[in-house]
């Protein structure tokens, strides 16, 4: 290295100066670099501030029952956010997550109640529905090279229609279902706290997906494909196969989400969850995952889902109208994306 410093032409000295000037770090750019390195850090800070502020505003907020309620309220969106994160990491977006989950939940409930199929088999059928939906999305994205936004906008409508056609628009009540279907709505005590099995299932999914994304070659390829598809292809990564597997994995997660949803609402309703697709995108975006792909952390999405749940819960405890909750979530989204844009400017 010393050799080439002396070997450089005379103008190299000026270039050095210019580059040093560009490299100089201000405190702000240092913060940016840290946030850039740990994408879950900014949502973690927001979550902490929100908890403190709402805790001061209303002493009921920090009570164990209330915190447990918040986690139960975010269990479904938090699960959908896992599927959404996987797809957004590949620079895609999935508008059909809510519709797939509802379709899967209706199939599970109808098969068990109307067709008398045993609960576990009905759940497996629900998983098959999730996988089939994922396969359809993945096929259209990889084979026809259609933008994921358009593909899932189309399949969103298709799945909503299929759900209504299949269910005849009627809700299946939890009391009519085999117990295994509503099992994720049950709670169990740990000390004074009642923990929901649905929340445990969601956290379990996060742990599994975090492991796969962080510790396996597949996870690394998901990031690489979202980061720069062409660079990934030239590095020898089978891009289409990775994309297809991401949509399949998302479909499987959504089927588990369907199970959690049945437990949480103690019913399977074809009209539930119309805007869950947007809620899941909100959680992912607030969680610091970039809509441009290749950047983000699965834990950030859990934090994002919790932040939305905490804002809704805290604002309603503070006695504010539901309108203000929606307003706050809207502002959160824009702030989160602005921060993402700012973070992405690191030395570009």
């Amino acid at each position, binding site marked *: 290295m010393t050799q080439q410093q002396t070997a450089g032409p005379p103008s190299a000295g000026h270039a050095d100066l210019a580059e040093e000037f560009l490299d100089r770090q201000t405190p702000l750019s240092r913060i940016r670099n840290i946030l*850039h390195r740990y994408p879950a850090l900014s949502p973690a800070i927001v979550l902490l501030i929100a908890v403190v502020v709402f805790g001061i505003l209303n002493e009921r907020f920090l009570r164990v029952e209330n915190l447990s309620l918040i986690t139960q309220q975010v269990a479904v969106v938090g699960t959908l956010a896992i599927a959404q994160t996987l797809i957004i990491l590949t620079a895609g977006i999935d508008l059909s997550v809510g519709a797939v989950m509802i379709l899967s939940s209706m199939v599970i409930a109808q098969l068990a109640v109307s067709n008398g199929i045993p609960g576990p088999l009905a759940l497996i059928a629900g998983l098959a529905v999730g996988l089939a939906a994922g396969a359809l999305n993945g096929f259209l994205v990889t084979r026809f090279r259609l933008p994921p936004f358009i593909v899932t906008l189309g399949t969103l409508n298709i799945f909503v229609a299929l759900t209504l056609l299949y269910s005849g628009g009627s809700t299946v009540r939890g009391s009519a279902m085999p117990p295994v279907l509503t099992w994720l709505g049950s709670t169990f005590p740990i000390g004074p706290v009642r923990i929901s099995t649905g929340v445990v299932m969601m956290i379990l999914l996060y742990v599994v997906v975090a492991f796969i994304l962080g510790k*396996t070659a597949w996870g690394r390829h998901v990031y690489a494909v979202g980061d720069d598809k062409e660079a990934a292809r030239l590095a020898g990564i089978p891009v289409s196969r990775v994309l297809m597997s991401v949509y399949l994995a998302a479909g499987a997660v959504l089927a588990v989400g369907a199970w959690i949803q049945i437990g949480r609402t103690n019913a399977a309703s074809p009209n539930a969850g119309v805007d869950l697709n947007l809620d899941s995108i909100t959680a992912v975006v607030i969680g610091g995952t970039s809509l441009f792909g290749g950047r983000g952390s699965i834990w950030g999405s859990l934090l994002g889902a919790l932040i939305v749940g905490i804002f809704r819960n805290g604002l309603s405890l503070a006695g504010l109208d539901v309108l203000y909750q929606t307003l706050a979530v809207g502002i959160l989204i824009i702030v989160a994306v602005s921060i993402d844009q700012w973070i992405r400017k690191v030395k570009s």
Partner: protein
Amino acid sequence: MTMTEFSASHTATREPILKARNLVKTFGRVVGLDGVSLDLYPGEVLAVIGDNGAGKSTLIKCLTGAEIPDTGELYVSGQQVHFKRPQDARVHGIETVYQNLAVSPALDVASNLFLGREERLPGLLGSVFRMLDTKGMRRKAKEELTRLGISTLQDVTVPVENLSGGQRQAVAVARAAAFGSKVVVLDEPTAALGVRESNQVLQLVRDLRDRGLPVILISHNMPHVFDVADRIHIQRLGKCAATITPQSHSMTDAVAIMTGAAKA
């Protein structure tokens, strides 16, 4: 190296590592390559220059498996090969650094070096749980960078986008050098770089050559070409107009041959 020494070292006593004979590639009515032959010997830097549309890229693509030539033969270490895709060339030890598309920005240096050929942990953790050997890959990445003399890149956990253009190019070159056992092909490696960064990359090219790894360098930049190349293959109108050396010809001569103003 004088002219006589040079030609002495490249006579029939040495077998070319990569040998192309009469490559022809047409795109519809357009003739991209019109019977091009090329030899790459061990331990040399062969520059390929030519005007736009002269067939430079097509030649390189045929050598690295990105395009399949219509006719003509390709030999690696004397053995005939037929590349159908870039992976085929890679299997034969030919690594290519593509212009601007070299690395995955959000991934760190070590992940980029091993991208597409990650190593798993030994035992059950690797085979059943498919866990990556992150520590091992980082250690090897560091060793590889040290071996290449890339001392500015000691922290292999930095995302590549935090690096300067020259350092990014160094990562891409290091990846090629780490896995390219026979030939490294660099497509315009200094095109987007500043003066100091270009010098770093050129030094890296020299280091590769000194380690015995032959390099094919595609470049528009005449000073860079004349700085590092041992021989220069000049493409013109789909043919090899001449193969010269920096000693036998000046830059002006090379440009004249490239544009057809002079014959070799």
